[in-house]
């Protein structure tokens, strides 16, 4: 089971050549066709030893497709493809050795979700554990990359190590050596695959997901910042420290120390509503989302992040540039007049807002894609200067808008907290919906508002918090808020039975 473009055909050819070299009869089939274009595809090999006494010319009659329940080895070139094989009934506890690369290559429907649509890898491990006789899983994509080869070679190595076919390792390597192309890297990947499988034999490995990295709430040797840290440590219970460590740094980095103090004040307001009995969940949630809300994504922020020295280093590492290579980066900016007005002092910006016709006309001059090369002086300077202007951020129109949103939201949190602690937590967490830039941002904002308006209607019900959580999850499921509308309708159907109130 593989995806088109993964080189499944190469692996199949190797296995057939291997079997034939050991005097086995082997037959392979596949149904590639158009499925090769990145889709899931299936290859099938049937092989058996040729006994000595078979009269010449007599050949086995082999099947052209896999028979569920009678498959000895299933190889999944990607984790979900292994899952698909289990779903097709090809993996059975009495005989199947399941070899899978534990890496994920996400399908479009997983990636396109506005929230987190990644399929549950653990489900595959759980199913493999009950359905396979032996389950061997480890990250072979990494091996392939490390050895400058393809995943097929690593899978071939794993197959050899699994010992499901009674052939010596040498026989496998001979097949690779006589195949003709990129022999050295293939043998390297084969060896690593062999070792990896031997390692993973008893316990299938997982691709470790990075745990959240909390910044510690400890002094860093900067007098002003350390003062804030000290304050925070004294004011807030230990359960909140981790999140504040990250939140405070984000906020101070976004603006300045005073902004950090403002953050701590807002949090203190939340702490006053909180109780230890609930494990300070409210304050932890507030520490996260208030930081996100305060460090909103504006022109100055983007300019600053794009021009930092640390970014230049990270980028070189990310794209794998060697020291002897040069790299130039082009940034794709598309400012609209909205962003320009947002960066003006609030008073001036508001005047413009009263002249929509003028704004539209001006937008024509501004609203276009601008490409800036940040590794050349011209492009760099534009963003560098913009980033420097962040010190005026507090007087901008954008800031006043953000401030207004924030105040409204936190007022609702407070109001909710008085009647329903869990609901207040959910109201805080709903801030997750506001993200992205321009249209995407407006869409997220409007989803947020729709959930907030439902909060008011739900307040007082025992299941209010639960419903707000469901609304948020629905809002993250699709771009246009179809699932959200459905969920809101359901709410209205029990809030106002009989009426057909539309939200």
């Amino acid at each position, binding site marked *: 089971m593989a995806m088109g473009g993964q080189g499944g055909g190469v692996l199949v050819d190797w296995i057939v050549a291997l079997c034939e070299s050991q005097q086995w009869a082997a037959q392979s089939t596949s149904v590639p066709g158009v499925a090769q274009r990145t889709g899931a595809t299936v290859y099938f090999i049937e092989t058996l030893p040729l006994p000595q006494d078979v009269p010449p010319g007599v050949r086995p009659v082999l099947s052209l497709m896999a028979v569920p329940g009678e498959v000895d080895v299933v190889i999944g070139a990607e984790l979900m493809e292994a899952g698909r094989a289990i779903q097709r009934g090809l993996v059975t506890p009495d005989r199947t050795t399941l070899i899978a690369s534990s890496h994920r290559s996400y399908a479009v429907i997983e990636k396109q979700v506005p929230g987190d649509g990644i399929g549950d890898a653990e489900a595959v491990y*759980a199913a493999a554990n009950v359905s396979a006789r032996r389950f061997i899983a480890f990250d072979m994509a990494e091996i392939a990359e490390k050895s400058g080869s393809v995943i097929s070679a690593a899978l071939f190595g794993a197959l050899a190590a699994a010992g499901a076919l009674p052939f010596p390792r040498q026989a496998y390597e001979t097949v690779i050596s006589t195949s003709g192309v990129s022999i050295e890297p293939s043998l390297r990947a084969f060896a690593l695959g062999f070792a990896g499988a031997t390692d993973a034999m008893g316990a299938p490995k997982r691709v470790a997901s990075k745990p959240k990295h909390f910044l510690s709430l400890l002094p860093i040797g900067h007098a002003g910042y350390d003062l804030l840290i000290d304050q925070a440590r004294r004011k807030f219970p230990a359960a909140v420290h981790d999140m504040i460590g990250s939140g405070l740094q984000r906020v101070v980095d976004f603006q300045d120390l005073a902004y950090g103090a403002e953050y701590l004040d807002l949090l203190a307001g939340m702490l006053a509503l909180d109780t230890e009995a609930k494990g300070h969940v409210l304050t932890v949630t507030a520490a996260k989302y208030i930081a996100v809300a305060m460090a909103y994504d504006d022109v100055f922020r983007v300019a600053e992040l794009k021009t930092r020295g640390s970014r230049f280093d990270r980028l070189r590492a990310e794209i794998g540039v060697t020291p002897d290579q040069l790299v130039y980066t082009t940034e794709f900016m598309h400012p609209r007049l909205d962003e320009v007005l947002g960066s003006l002092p609030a008073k001036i910006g508001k005047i413009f807002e009263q002249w929509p016709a003028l704004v539209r006309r001006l937008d024509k001059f501004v609203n276009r894609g601008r490409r800036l090369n940040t590794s050349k002086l011209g492009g760099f300077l534009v963003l560098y200067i913009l980033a420097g202007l962040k010190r005026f951020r507090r007087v901008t129109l954008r800031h006043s808008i953000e401030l207004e949103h924030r105040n409204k939201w936190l007022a609702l949190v407070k109001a909710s907290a008085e009647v329903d602690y869990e609901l207040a937590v959910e109201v805080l967490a709903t801030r997750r919906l506001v993200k992205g830039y321009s249209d995407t941002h407006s869409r997220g904002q409007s989803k947020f508002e729709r959930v907030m308006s439902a909060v008011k209607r739900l307040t007082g019900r025992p299941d209010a918090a639960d419903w707000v959580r469901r609304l948020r999850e629905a809002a993250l499921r699709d771009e246009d808020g179809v699932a959200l509308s459905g969920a809101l309708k359901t709410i209205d159907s029990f809030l106002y039975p009989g009426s057909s109130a539309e939200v």
Partner: protein
Amino acid sequence: MTERSFAKEVRDLELGAGEVFRGEGILAITKALLQSGVGYVGGYQGAPISHLMDVLSDAQGTLAKLGVQFSASASEASAAASLAASVMYPIRGAVTFKSTVGTNVASDALANLASSGVKGGAVIIVGEDYGEGSSIMQERSHAFAMKSQIWLLDPRPNLESIVKAVEESFELSEASNTPVMLEVRIRACHVHGSFVAKDNKPPPFTLKQALENPSRDSDRIVLPPASFVHEKEKIRLRWPAAVSFIKERKLNEFFFGDLNEVGIIMQGGMYNGVMRALQRLGLADVWGATRIPLYCMNVTYPLIDDEIADFCAGKQAVLIVEEGQPEYIEQSINTILRRRDLNTKIFGKDVLPMAGEYTANVLLEGLRAFLTVNLPSSLSDQARAPNKLQIDDDPHVKTLAGAVPPRPPGFCIGCPERPIFAAMKLVENELGPHHVAADIGCHLFSILPPFNIGTTTMGYGLGPASAAAFNVESDKKPISIIGDGGFWHNGLTSSIGNAVYNKQDGVILIVDNYYSSATGGQDLLSSRANNNSRSTQHPIAKAVEGIGATWVRQIDNTYDVTKIRDTLREALITKSPGPKVIVASSECMLNKQRRVKPAFHKAVKGGVRMVRERFGVDEDICTGDHACIRLSGCPSLSVKRTDDPLKDDPVAVVDNSCVGCGNCGEVADAAVLCPSFYRADIIYNPTSFDRFVGQLRSAVIGFLQRRRARRGIAFT
């Protein structure tokens, strides 16, 4: 240039007598054609027979040596029409295409050919695209054979049988003056096996000889009264000739078994599946021995009445294994037995499903049901009532339904068609959804997420034609799509000419990627590369204008999303009458990379200064809303969970498979998405000037960066 190079396979085509050929079924057929003394070959590419065309295309040298003429036909109709060379001359010809779509297109020529009858063997190799892996509507080629009276061979799916069937097809065709269709299913085309080769045979009578000594016979031309004579001749002469040839040469096979009360009649292509089912029931072994007698029809049309009657006589019941519907063979066998008053019970579509592929489990259940009723003693208790596989019911396995995502095929990394549909999506956001008539080709992937564009497909090159009815006054025009493959196949006349003539008020978007990409990257009339054996570089826009379209826009860079969006918008709102044709051209990335990548690596190795572009995402700036992915779906643009505790959702990430096509930047720009994308131009082997300027730049930039960092707070 095709997707695969067939250099090795071309060598295999030259194997001589006694040497062992190893390879794919479809390549074995190619070799069999040469061994049969074929004089000419034509066809139209498409899975599962593309490789036959591709290998012949690469084997021009071998063909020239043998004196075999090869055409890459413009369509299946062109291919089938070329068999006319075998009507008057004793020359063997073969054509190939996928079925039933190709057979549909070819059927006019095939019907005429079958009426005229042939002197030289005429063989049509059809790739039966039925069941898993198929990309077309599910139908049988059998109906075409019956309606035009073309004999149909369906050999057992192993290389020896298939090769033998090719050779016999020519002989059968000549013996009965009738064209022969050879049907091979998807898996059989891709089955890996071996056979002992024979020497290639140059055609004994050549096309050149024919041209220099033309001959004609008005009795062979399809026009009354000859056409009425043909119809009777088919039954009076050709049918009996075929029947006796098939009988004498034993094209169909009997496999004896000791359980004579029952038997199985099957299409040759079903043999391996049936044998495996019998093995699982304990009634056969892997070496071909069976306890149930089998009648394997390597020829499925015509049926050989005597053979069927002989097989059924004395049997209590017979099972017919016939894939697909309707059950033509089963019906015919019932008629044969009734006429002879044989009372053998016929089982078939009652124990096997009427429709769909006969997979291993389907056959097993069908055979089990048949034997349970008719010969229960043949089955062990375990075979009659096996333990159900428990594993399917395990809750852990059931959970997978929600966790394993479907993975349909989609646009490749850097595909030039992606930005076209991204632009369409943007126009849809502005002007609302439109009726979109889709067509056949890679561009049909637009119907899937993330684009979800396209309502119908009516056949290759028929996208714009399928929007013809919508030629009415409306505020919204229909949009129709057609690829360059479909365009040259028949779209120029059926779709564009049709739209021009009928003043069809709609938008026609021609997706031109320089190749017939969905079928493996074959060249076309409008391909941009030089092709020594074909005439290319005929622009689509010129053809469209030539046929009378006046509103024509040529866009030479599909990655310019803004331009495509604006052109599409203009086409949708203009008052100009008639079709609005947009030709959007950029090279198929799969083919381009195959060409460019090796050259790039070679140059880098040789120390030449080279620039590679790729895209990236600034993780800090990405907010994880995935709007970019909803306008892309590129395999190299993915997501990853971050370690930032302030971020809930995975952020976008571009992996190293990125080819720097530009779509990400263009879309981020045209859709005003977000500033997280950047393009990195990586300079390999920079010159000393590059280095000097680079150092200068990074010195100044570095100074400014350090200056700001000093003034800020240094977080550790």
